[in-house]
């Protein structure tokens, strides 16, 4: 080692201490030359972690990432070389999702605008809901239409896959909910009616709480949230309390239900008995959207994106195995603290909450100049992305809510965004009919995807990272691949 180091570096050594994101120290402090690079730091850290396979890591010194060498990163910061320097290491996803670059197919079939698009949790099936009242299933290996599910009598506003990928729920503007089987395209069980106005959001119970995927929560414009028992085909509980339309409902992994509404509040309910726990107030206008830090892992259930294969398969195993796996994955992503919730509103701000603990928000994130349409946590919960009608997407730190950067490029309102499974890439669909892929590391535009003829209403990235699907006003569904 002494032969490699130049004499000038002999003098400059630094005491560093590795710490993980929660602040726990790893090993004891030790000496390193100041010119050490990120690769060498990785080797050292992996050795200390003593894992079977080396994990890619990112290192941060006082919130500045070590990209090249420690020296260059420290050049900007005035630090004492006498004290021990804390370096925070963050394990990155082992697998790497490649950016999508081309449109492999434009799937026509819908006779009206495509309003919602969703991949199943394993990425095996693709479903889309549209204004022509049908839900269509598409075969991904041949990129052709597979089934057309007819039954709704009005626009299909929202669709949601059950975490085991065996059922699809779709809600329409006539306040009806249908359940479909993706393998045959037929309706399962009865039509779920009960709401008096249209359905704004559907959310299934997480897999690790119930591996049968039995309960479904629906939010509606009539201000109530209904929990449906899909096995029996009837309504289990009705949660009322909101005075205006409920815009979003999320089923958390800790047995709590979160609902945001146009009456400017977010209500936290206990899913066991439907009792209201807390009301989170603070927004000055409609709360449009919410995101939980554990959203992605709740969506994918027992499926691990790192184990994805080229041909997506259903997750196999008994119910108990699936439940265990889902519980493991959930615990890993959740970490030590409680779930975090970020809410975006028409008042141009976002709030970061710890709904299980506190009524007061952790942070108010301002900066947008128009209403916020969607917020999403990255799958590793480190970054929050917010899409707004002011043509920009802003990235915020996932733990503290600090502003990171703005992604500009769209020329009109950004409608929906989707993260890739490794949290490195973000795709956004906008009303200017283009999609853009952004790199979260460099915080720049990676690829521009024009092709749609009219506004892009819905975007989704498949959990195995291979494809992006987008649908819009031009009635066709486009699939993008590498």
């Amino acid at each position, binding site marked *: 080692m002494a032969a490699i180091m130049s004499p000038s570096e002999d003098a400059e050594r630094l005491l560093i201490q590795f710490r993980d994101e929660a602040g726990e120290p790893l090993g004891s402090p030790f000496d390193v030359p100041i010119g050490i690079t990120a690769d060498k730091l990785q080797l050292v850290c992996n050795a200390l972690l003593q894992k079977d396979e080396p994990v890619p890591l990112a290192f941060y010194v006082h919130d500045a990432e070590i990209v090249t060498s420690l020296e260059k990163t420290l050049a900007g910061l005035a630090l004492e070389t006498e004290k021990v320097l804390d370096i925070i290491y963050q394990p990155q996803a082992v697998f790497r999702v490649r950016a999508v670059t081309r449109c492999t197919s434009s799937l026509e079939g819908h006779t009206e605008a495509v*309003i919602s698009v969703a991949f199943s949790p394993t990425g095996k099936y693709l479903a889309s809901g549209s*204004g022509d009242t049908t839900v269509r299933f598409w075969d991904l290996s041949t990129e052709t239409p597979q089934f057309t599910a007819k039954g709704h009598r009005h*626009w299909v*506003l*929202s669709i949601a896959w059950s975490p085991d990928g065996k059922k699809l729920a779709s809600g329409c503007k006539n306040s009806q909910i249908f359940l479909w089987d993706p393998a045959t395209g037929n309706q399962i069980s009865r039509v779920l009616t009960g709401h008096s106005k249209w359905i704004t959001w559907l959310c299934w119970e997480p897999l690790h709480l119930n591996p049968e995927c039995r309960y479904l929560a629906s939010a509606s414009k009539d201000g109530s949230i209904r929990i449906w028992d899909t096995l029996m085909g009837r309504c289990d509980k009705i949660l009322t309390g909101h005075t205006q339309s409920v815009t979003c409902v999320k089923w958390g992994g800790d047995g709590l239900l979160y609902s945001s509404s146009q009456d400017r509040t977010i209500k936290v309910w206990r899913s066991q008995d439907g009792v209201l726990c807390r009301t989170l107030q603070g927004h000055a206008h409609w709360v449009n959207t919410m995101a939980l830090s554990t959203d992605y892992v709740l969506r994918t259930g027992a499926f691990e994106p790192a184990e994805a294969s080229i041909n997506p398969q259903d997750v196999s195993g008994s119910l108990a195995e699936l439940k265990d796996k889902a519980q493991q994955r959930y615990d890993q992503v959740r970490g030590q603290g409680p779930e975090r919730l970020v809410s975006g509103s028409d008042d141009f701000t976002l709030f970061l909450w710890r709904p299980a603990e506190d009524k007061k928000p952790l942070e108010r994130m301002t900066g947008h100049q128009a209403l916020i*349409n969607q917020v999403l946590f990255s799958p590793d919960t480190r970054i929050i992305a917010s899409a707004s009608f002011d043509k920009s997407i802003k990235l915020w730190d996932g733990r503290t809510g600090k502003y990171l950067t703005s992604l500009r490029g769209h020329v009109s309102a950004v409608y929906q965004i989707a993260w890739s499974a490794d949290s490195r890439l973000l795709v956004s669909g906008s009303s200017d009919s283009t999609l853009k892929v952004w790199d979260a590391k460099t915080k720049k535009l990676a690829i521009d995807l024009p092709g749609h003829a009219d506004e892009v*209403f*819905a975007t989704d990235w498949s959990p195995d990272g291979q494809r992006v699907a987008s649908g819009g006003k031009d009635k066709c569904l486009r699939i993008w691949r590498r």
Partner: protein
Amino acid sequence: MPQNEHIELHRKRHGRRLDYHERRRKKEGREAHERSRKAKKMIGLKAKLYHKQRHAEKIQMKKTIKMHEKRNTKEKNEEKTPKGAIPAYLLDREGQSRAKVLSNMIKQKRKEKAGKWEVPVPKVRAQGETEVLKVIRTGKRKKKAWKRMVTKVCFVGDGFTRKPPKYERFIRPMGLRFKKAHVTHPELKATFCLPILGVKKNPSSPLYTTLGVITKGTVIEVNVSELGLVTQGGKVIWGKYAQVTNNPENDGCINAVLLV
């Protein structure tokens, strides 16, 4: 027309005749017969006018009956779903064309600079003094002309007492004093008859504001406790501003639109 509420007071204090309800019921029962008797006997211009009015009334009645009938029967729903499907997050919003957004912003900035408040009737014809105030000549030889009488509708408060007649300069005739206004809620599109609390501003002159003269475009304060509005903090709102939209001296009533 009673000038004060002595009739209502008497009713409150002593109640009604014992057979009042019976008599009323019977009178109402006779009404149809009375009407038809009159209609048959009427001749001349009077008859023409009456029949014209009655015909219009009957058309309205038939329409409402038909509407009620429709409500009771169930019609087969039209199967066509409307065009222009939009996702859930765009449903409650009005789509604004992109070109308009920019021009709207510029207009908003201009308005802010001018410092104008947004009111439904922004520009009103200014009423001159000769129009609103009529000169009253007094004195033995009717030479003195220092008194004025208000010719427009006005509002005087509850505890209003005239100044001694010898000294009062502005006369507000009792016939032109109003206590209630028909206020329309612009979003609910419903009209309520609400008591006036006071005159906030008359656009023609501050003198008219102090006098309580109500003309078109005047901002008045009305008692909205009937509407049951509540603030964010939970307090009940009982007074709101409304702007007068008609010429009350011509119509005999005050129509206003609520400023929300």
